[in-house]
């Protein structure tokens, strides 16, 4: 990996498979309820029931995360109910402290150890945690009390001593939601870069900055955000943290909890790709 191009290093602890990647696309399946269509799609792809069930669970965890639902985090958190953002912060801390058994690698690379290596280097009591703005415009979330999941995750991470929340980026105008609405070629890093603005006065030059997001798909949002910060503070060291990542290659799915560290790579046409 080190010899290949890497424009932004990132880590994430959870993974999910979008339902639409599982569905049976045969015309006669179109009217089936979605769960059935997904189960049939799994069967056609030779995905065993248990794995298929975990993929459907992962889709629902993504939904919990997007709405910051109060969930029961068993078996991690016993019967305590916490907001999804807090569960993410707790899991991150536990992964860094090696308190969770990390899934054994199916390939040569131990992605979980890489997560510990990368985020362990960046997270710490004084690390600026910069929440990534949502795709739509935001008036003032603190005033109108609206949901901003990355900000909530950053606040929870701060509460656990993993850094300090720093609202340093703001969205100037809405951009289309990347995960569901756009084709890959339409997700341009430049779209994000141009719609974001730095609103913090803190000098980030020379500091290790963690961009905090809820879901990473291609990585164009994280990379656009990193560029925007580097524009103002060229000597900031930036890493991305996304609670969850989208899995497009079904063979890469190893369960919802699967910490990895990897790279977001910028292409010449301003699209991005992510590995893993």
């Amino acid at each position, binding site marked *: 990996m080190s010899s290949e191009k890497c424009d932004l290093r990132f880590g994430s602890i*959870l993974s999910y498979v*979008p*339902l*639409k990647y599982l569905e049976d696309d045969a015309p006669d399946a179109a*009217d089936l*309820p*979605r*769960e059935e269509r*997904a189960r049939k799609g799994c069967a056609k792809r030779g995905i065993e029931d*248990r*794995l298929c069930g*975990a993929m*459907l*669970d992962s*889709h*629902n*965890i993504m*939904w*919990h995360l*997007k*709405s*910051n*639902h*109060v*969930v*029961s*985090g*068993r*078996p*991690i958190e016993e019967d305590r*109910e916490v*907001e*999804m953002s807090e*569960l993410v912060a707790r*899991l991150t801390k536990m992964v860094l402290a090696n308190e969770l058994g990390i*899934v054994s690698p199916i390939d040569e690379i131990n992605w979980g150890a890489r997560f510990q290596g990368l985020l362990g280097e960046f997270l710490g009591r004084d690390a600026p945690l910069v929440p990534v703005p*949502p*795709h*739509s*415009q*935001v008036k003032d979330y603190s005033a*109108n*009390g*609206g*949901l*901003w*999941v990355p900000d*909530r995750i950053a606040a929870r991470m701060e509460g656990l001593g993993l850094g300090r929340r720093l609202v340093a980026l703001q969205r100037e*105008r*809405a951009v289309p*939601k990347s995960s*569901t*609405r756009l084709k890959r070629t339409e997700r341009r890093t430049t779209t994000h870069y141009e719609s974001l603005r730095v609103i913090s006065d803190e000098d980030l030059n020379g500091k290790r900055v963690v961009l905090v997001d809820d879901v990473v798909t291609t990585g164009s949002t994280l990379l656009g955000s990193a560029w925007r910060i580097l524009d103002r503070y060229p000597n900031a060291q930036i890493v991305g943290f996304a609670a969850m990542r989208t899995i497009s290659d079904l063979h890469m799915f*190893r*369960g*919802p*909890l699967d910490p990895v560290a990897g790279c977001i790579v910028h292409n010449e046409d301003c699209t991005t790709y992510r590995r893993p």
Partner: protein
Amino acid sequence: MRKVTLRELLGRELNYVEHKYAPRELYVEGALELPLKDPRVSVVGTRQPSQAGLDAARLIAGRLAEQGVAVVSGLARGIDTAAHVTAIERGGRTIAVLGTPLDRFYPPENRELQLEIMRKHLAVSQFPPGHITRPRDFVMRNRTMALISDATVIVEAGAVSGAISQGWEAIRLGRPLYIWRDTFDNPNLTWPRKMERYGAMRLDERSIDELLDELPVSPIDYIVKLGL
């Protein structure tokens, strides 16, 4: 009729943004098992719809119902009624969130529909029996409807409508908000443009399935299963 908390209705506690306008208790009557197990989508709009608006409400509610999504609406005349009736006709489930107490029938012509929903589906009101209805109750009802729905669709609405309050509340809660194409594209309305800047999405015949992609698979629970 019985009194339940939102916890009993949804199967979970509320997060920090949901608390703001959440009623402490709700009155419910109906046959749906609590906590609710199916994904829920609000289909709401004007009491004076166009024929195209009614057709759209039926198309959306029908597709949701056949996909196992409970259709939530406010039992008002027009779009709401079309949404409830279509969901029932397609063999789906429907939830009516009333701006009046459950012992009242408003509008009077929906009495039979309300009774059927109270028998076979679910009627919900945050107002106790005997409560005297005030105009603002309907805005409170729309916020509650946004809260118990996983997504909201505004089918058709003019410049002033309870559906618009519901749309803003859905945005505040971070839930997907869709506006049907005719209303979204209507140059005489300013609110769809504003809502788009805050994340509202345009819904048409093709994108109904994208809405479905944003919903959970049932049965819904709030226990996060992290392993394989």
